[in-house]
């Protein structure tokens, strides 16, 4: 009897944490972001993939391709939004992407990002070539999934699949 009484708070805590965790898991969906670079004839491209809300305010970074922080200022849109704050890309940074190569990112994104006015941006920069902020800007919508869009300078195509 005493044991069952002692177990009650623990069970209540377990139920509470489960109730809080399960909806969070259910509110995310796996998304694949595919960025194919054109054969622009230069070194590897730095790419910043980030999201802004309906008002154009920065929400967060999905991925940073390129590891030398001194070059992040060339990713103009991302840099202006973040001030180059490394905390924004901690754990989500990889190597730059070579010309003609395809970067494929699989990530669980929050459901609330879709059909709610959010936009996914890709900034691009290549050594000794022109910077290309906002190389890609696509609204995050369920209808837009699977549809490839061309970039302005370095990205041949970009699409997200759910």
């Amino acid at each position, binding site marked *: 009897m005493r044991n069952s009484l002692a177990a009650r708070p623990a069970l209540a805590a377990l139920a509470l944490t489960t109730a809080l965790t399960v909806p969070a898991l259910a509110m995310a969906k796996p998304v694949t972001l595919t960025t194919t670079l054109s054969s622009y004839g230069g070194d590897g491209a730095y790419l910043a993939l980030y999201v802004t809300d309906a008002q154009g305010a920065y929400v*967060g970074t999905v991925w940073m391709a390129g590891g*030398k922080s001194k070059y992040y200022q060339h990713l103009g849109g991302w840099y202006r939004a973040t001030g180059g704050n490394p905390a924004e890309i901690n754990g989500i*940074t990889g190597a730059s992407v*070579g010309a003609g190569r395809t970067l494929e*990112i699989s990530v*669980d994104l929050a459901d609330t990002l879709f059909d709610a006015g959010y936009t996914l941006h890709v900034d691009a920069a290549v*050594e000794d070539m022109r910077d290309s902020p906002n190389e890609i800007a696509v609204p995050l919508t369920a209808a837009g999934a699977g549809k490839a869009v061309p970039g302005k300078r370095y990205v041949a195509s970009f699409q997200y699949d759910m």
Partner: protein
Amino acid sequence: MTRKHALTILAASAAVAVAIGIPALGALSDPAERGETSAARGPDDQGGLWRLADDDDDDHHDRHHRDRRASRDRDHHDDCDDDEVCARPGMAPGMAPGPMGTGTPPQNKLFGTGAPPQVKVN
């Protein structure tokens, strides 16, 4: 006589300072020499070229050999030329990111489960 001598030395040192200072000021007036980028110049300027930040002295091998070596040594520490995201001077403790790669993503509204992204390049 001593006063005249002092004035001569003053004039000579002023001439040397001007001779050194004018070219230095001229170099500073060129944005490219200062390493400015499109992001630094303005939000809508997309004409910026990515220039290496640490090649200042490469065209003057004979004149500035010693300076270049010192500069390279300094750049090696300042710019962290390895393929890593680097800490910067003045960065608050704990702000420096970990090594390149995937880990726990930042806590923002994007990552639903907090699982690290899976990335591959084909």
